[in-house]
């Protein structure tokens, strides 16, 4: 190891600034750290497959005559409207890919800080607990929005480009708002969901398993309970089912389960509230007390 004081200490002649968004360095660094993982990069790239497929669908929907032989009567699936977008946003594969990206990219957001006792370093800076949590949640928001809002809006733009007119937009002027609304819902929900699970263990691998486990187990539980009680209300136990219910509502579609969508919103809100409560208890200066 090199000897100490290779260079002398000199005072810094700058001035510390009070940032408007003091959490921004946490967000930026969190995103950078996620992309340093090779496995994550592959998963992240793969998560855009549904968008690409739906983009191709948009193109084909405008060229039905050209692709008639390939479609063989399945062109009704390519009737692009709110339902098309609702299917894109609420299909199991997209939700699963979001969970996959978040588990591998953001599972350790709090768990790693707990494991390496770095919370005390954060809180010895002019940062509040709120700043810390907003910084971490913004990392999740970045990945969720880049997989939902961005492709959703791009799909709308490409629909207009492929159609060569604004007819689609004039027909459904609220659709971009639905896209943004549902993306925001997913962002808030997954933000709390991932941070909650990330705060319950110091081991990022356990957190990864938990993020998948809770998501999948809730759906399995829904299937089991529904087969026992024969009531669609059991869908409220399932994380993906609740997200799909809320998505269908926001896109003006019939919910996949015969349960008022408001119940699903209530369940999702309850999970967020519970997460906020747990995070408030877990992330505090108490961490510094050994």
């Amino acid at each position, binding site marked *: 190891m090199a000897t*100490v004081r290779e260079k002398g200490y000199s005072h*810094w002649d700058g001035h510390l600034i009070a940032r408007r968004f003091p959490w921004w360095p946490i967000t930026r660094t969190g995103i950078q750290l996620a992309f340093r993982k090779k496995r994550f990069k592959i998963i992240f790239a793969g998560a855009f497959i549904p968008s690409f497929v739906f983009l191709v669908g948009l193109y084909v929907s405008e060229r039905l005559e050209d692709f008639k032989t390939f479609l063989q009567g399945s062109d009704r699936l390519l009737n692009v409207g709110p339902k098309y977008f609702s299917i894109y946003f609420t299909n199991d594969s997209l939700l699963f890919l979001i969970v996959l990206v978040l588990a591998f990219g953001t599972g350790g957001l709090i768990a790693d800080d707990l494991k390496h006792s770095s919370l005390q370093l954060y809180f010895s800076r002019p940062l509040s607990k709120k700043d810390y949590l907003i910084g971490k949640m913004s990392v999740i928001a970045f990945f969720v929005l880049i997989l939902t809002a961005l492709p959703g809006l791009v799909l709308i733009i490409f629909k207009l480009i492929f159609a060569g007119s604004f007819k689609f937009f004039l027909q459904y002027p609220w659709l971009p708002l639905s896209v943004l609304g549902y993306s925001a819902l997913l962002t808030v929900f997954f933000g709390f969901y991932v941070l909650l699970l990330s705060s319950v263990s110091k081991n990022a691998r356990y957190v990864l398993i938990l993020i998948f486990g809770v998501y999948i187990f809730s759906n399995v539980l829904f299937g089991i309970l529904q087969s026992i009680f024969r009531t669609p209300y059991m869908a409220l136990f399932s994380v993906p089912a609740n997200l799909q219910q809320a998505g269908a509502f926001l896109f003006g579609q019939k919910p996949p389960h015969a349960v008022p969508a408001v119940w699903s919103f209530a369940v999702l809100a309850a999970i967020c509230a519970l997460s906020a409560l747990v995070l408030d208890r877990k992330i505090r200066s108490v961490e510094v*007390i050994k």
Partner: protein
Amino acid sequence: MSIEVKDLSFRYGKIVALDGVTMSLGEGAVGLLGPNGAGKSTLLRILLGFLVPERGEGKVLDYDIRREQSMIRRSVGYMPESDCFVAGMDAVTFTSYFGELSGMPRQEAMKRAHEVLFYVGLGEARYRLLDTYSAGMKQRLKLAQALVHDPKILFLDEPTSNLDPTGRQEVLELIRDISAHKSIQVLLSSHILDDIESLCETVVILKQGKLAAEGRMADLRTIHYSLYELRIKGDGAAFRKDLEGAGSRVDEMEDGLIKVYMPEASVRMDIFRAAARTGVQLRSFVKSRTSLEDLFAGVVGVD
């Protein structure tokens, strides 16, 4: 005064961690001493605003510890006791990251990170992943992140723990340089008495959450008691009882050496008189200069 606290009290549930601590600390290096559970770390955490005191008030650089925590944290560099880092980062990113979180502009933080890493001797290893750092390197890294925003005060919690003798000397050398030549005040909490003795001019001793002693080391050594080291032949128990009855504290070392801490009012002849009374023969008698260890033992009652 850079740090002032008045009647500071804090408890963890039913356990009293600090009980009415009042003190004023000036410039230079200050040692914070005390046995485990004395309240040293709690005091640091209250000064940093991690914990809200149950009672009392305090100021760090004239910033109120209850209301102006953010300003305090801008002015203070904190080096925690436990290992702490951010996984997946190298030292430059880590140090500049915490500089930025302190309020430094990004470019400045990066430039400064390089400087302080060179200063603490991690210049060559600054692009290595922190996960691969040794205990000594992590200790220096913690010092680097505490220095990156050029604080006015450094709070160092056990800065030399887990270090080998060479590493310990190097870190002590850095702290000495910082406190003596860089006009940065250092508040050093440690259970290693030698560290405090070699670095600090002023010491604060806590005992069971209360202030046991505070002041310049030179004053504390002389004011409260005189220390004599003796060897005897005869009934040590009776001799000891006699001295303790006169208000002295007597510690027997494993090698037979007896340390007698005599109160100010007593004179050395009292030892000879006690020896005569109990029929003990004094084989050796030396007036000792009190080391911090002796001071600590005298005040806190722990060897």
